[in-house]
């Protein structure tokens, strides 16, 4: 890029002393991404940095994300945080960032490129496998289990689906996993889907919801159908899920630590700006929580409402 004229300084993106970190996320409106945003903003304040946080409306808007990354690059930030919807399509821009000497920190899921200096992520597949493991225990290793997933093409959607299904296939031969249904993360649509699944499968044992929106839908759908005894396993947190787990309508959920992801992202970015060495990857981990441990300090710290 010819426009990288004032990038070398890397200092502040027009804001004097404060280093400017541009974060381009996979999403914006959903609670998970808001939690990442909050974590990043919190840490930035602490460190005296300025962050902006943008993301496309859905996780299939690859082109829009590319436009957002392009626009943020034009501002010559000191560092970029990037959660790629599709690694390959971002590669030219990542190369541009590299040529402008802007360090890139990947987050959420890995970016298939050697440009990012480090990756702050959790393993969605492993987390989904953890959910599968608990589901299997909850239903006693056999019976029908359904999936309500938020997206069938994005990486987080497919990882959270495949991690669950693969674990089941390998470890629970007596569990029949139904065809996954996709509700776009929309609570209402997920609720309607859930009710259809329950109608069509009177012998259903459990439902796994792959993100917060799906989980809220599943909880509502089950409640409205009046069906009892179903084991629900969720993903992420938020007040609705936490409440459901407290009152027993949901058995438990896996959660990643989005707030911490945001924090770690900014910490890594600040280190990169200062030229410090960084490990190849920083794992922010995931946790299983249910009624029994929901009030543990360790769990409480990773839940958002």
């Amino acid at each position, binding site marked *: 890029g010819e426009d990288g004229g004032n990038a070398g300084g890397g200092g502040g993106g027009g804001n004097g002393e404060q280093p400017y970190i541009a974060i381009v996320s996979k999403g914006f409106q959903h609670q998970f991404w808001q939690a990442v945003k909050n974590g990043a903003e919190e840490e930035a304040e602490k460190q005296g940095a300025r962050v902006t946080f943008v993301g496309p409306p859905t996780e299939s808007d690859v082109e829009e994300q590319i436009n957002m990354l392009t626009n943020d690059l034009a501002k010559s930030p000191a560092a970029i945080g990037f959660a790629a919807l599709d690694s390959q399509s971002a590669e030219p821009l990542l190369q541009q960032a590299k040529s402008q000497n802007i360090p890139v920190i990947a987050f959420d899921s890995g970016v298939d490129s050697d440009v990012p200096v480090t990756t702050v992520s959790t393993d969605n597949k492993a987390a989904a496998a953890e959910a599968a493991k608990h589901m299997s225990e909850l239903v006693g290793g056999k019976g029908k289990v359904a999936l309500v997933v938020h997206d069938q093409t994005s990486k987080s959607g497919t990882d959270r689906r495949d991690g669950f299904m693969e674990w089941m296939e390998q470890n629970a031969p007596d569990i029949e996993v139904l065809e996954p249904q996709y509700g776009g993360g929309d*609570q209402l649509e997920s609720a309607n889907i859930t009710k259809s699944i329950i*109608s069509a499968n009177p012998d259903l044992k459990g439902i796994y919801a792959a993100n917060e929106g799906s989980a809220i839908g599943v909880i509502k759908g089950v409640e409205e159908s009046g069906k009892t005894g179903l084991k629900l396993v969720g993903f992420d947190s938020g007040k*609705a899920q936490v409440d459901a787990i407290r009152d027993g309508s949901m058995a438990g959920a896996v959660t990643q630590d989005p707030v911490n992801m945001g924090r770690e992202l900014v910490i890594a970015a600040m280190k990169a700006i200062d030229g410090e060495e960084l490990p190849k990857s920083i794992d922010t981990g995931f946790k299983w929580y249910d009624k029994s441990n929901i009030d543990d300090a360790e769990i409480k710290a990773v839940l958002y409402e």
Partner: protein
Amino acid sequence: MTALETPPRESVAGGGFAAVAKGRLQQLLAFASLIAIFAFFSVASPFFFTYGNFTAILFSTVVIGTLAIGTTFVIITGGIDLAVGTGMALCAVMSGVFIVNMDLPLVVGLVATVLFGGMMGLINGINIALLKIPPFIATLAMMLVAEGLALVVSDSAPIYFSEEPSYTKISTGNLIPGVEFPNAVLVLIVVAVIAGVLLTKTVLGRYTYSIGSNEEATALSGIDVRKWKIAIYAFAGLFTGLAGIMISARLGSAQPATGMGYELQAIAAVVIGGTSLSGGKGSILGTLIGALIISTLNNGLQIMSIPQEWQNVILGCVILVAVYTDILRKKEA
């Protein structure tokens, strides 16, 4: 408008026994598509034809149905409303602000929310009728503004009605004792009846049709078209407010990020129900049937466990066929 067509069989603006009977017939035809879809699924899946599934279908029609009723008025005037989806989200958030954050009495909060929807409609109406901004653009702008404001007002976080158990009862409770019939469906029915009466029996409705049929002739007949258009948009906005209540009551929380795309579904329900996008024609019953066709198809395809990527393909084809047979039948009738 073509010189080549023969007179239509029905009068939509109502009135007269013959006309009403013909009007019924027309709606029965759209209804026939719905019945056919119902019959098909009932045969195809043993789980479809159950009381529980019926209420599930009805329940899933409530939000889109409410939005579609408001949209029907707007479309009959020859306009369009793209703001109902995100506007609904904003109204849901406002409901949370009124009832949870400001702790207003439930009824006051509900009324305030519905009026807030009306106010959004009012602004649309002013932009369209006074500033002469095309409805598509005026409501597109409102859609964007509402989308943003829902996040701003809620601070991008859902507002929970956990302290207000009676709030969710509006949607999921059973007013009819002993029968499993969600209140939400009752609300939709009541609202539809009111809207239907207003559309066919009152001046507001008559002018809605007149403006859509020939706005200039209506104005020259001494009707203050600007004023009435504003009134119609404001009135339609009330349904956005109501839909905001219905969705947040069902979910027990106001979700600021939801709503985008609902406008298209609402418009689709209206159009499948026989209302013409060029205005002057349409009915509430048709809209309800249109909304039911969509939700029945969604439900049935899921019940049949069709892989989801195929569901949309089939949905698209069935809508085409349903509307086409409808057109054929009307021609023959």
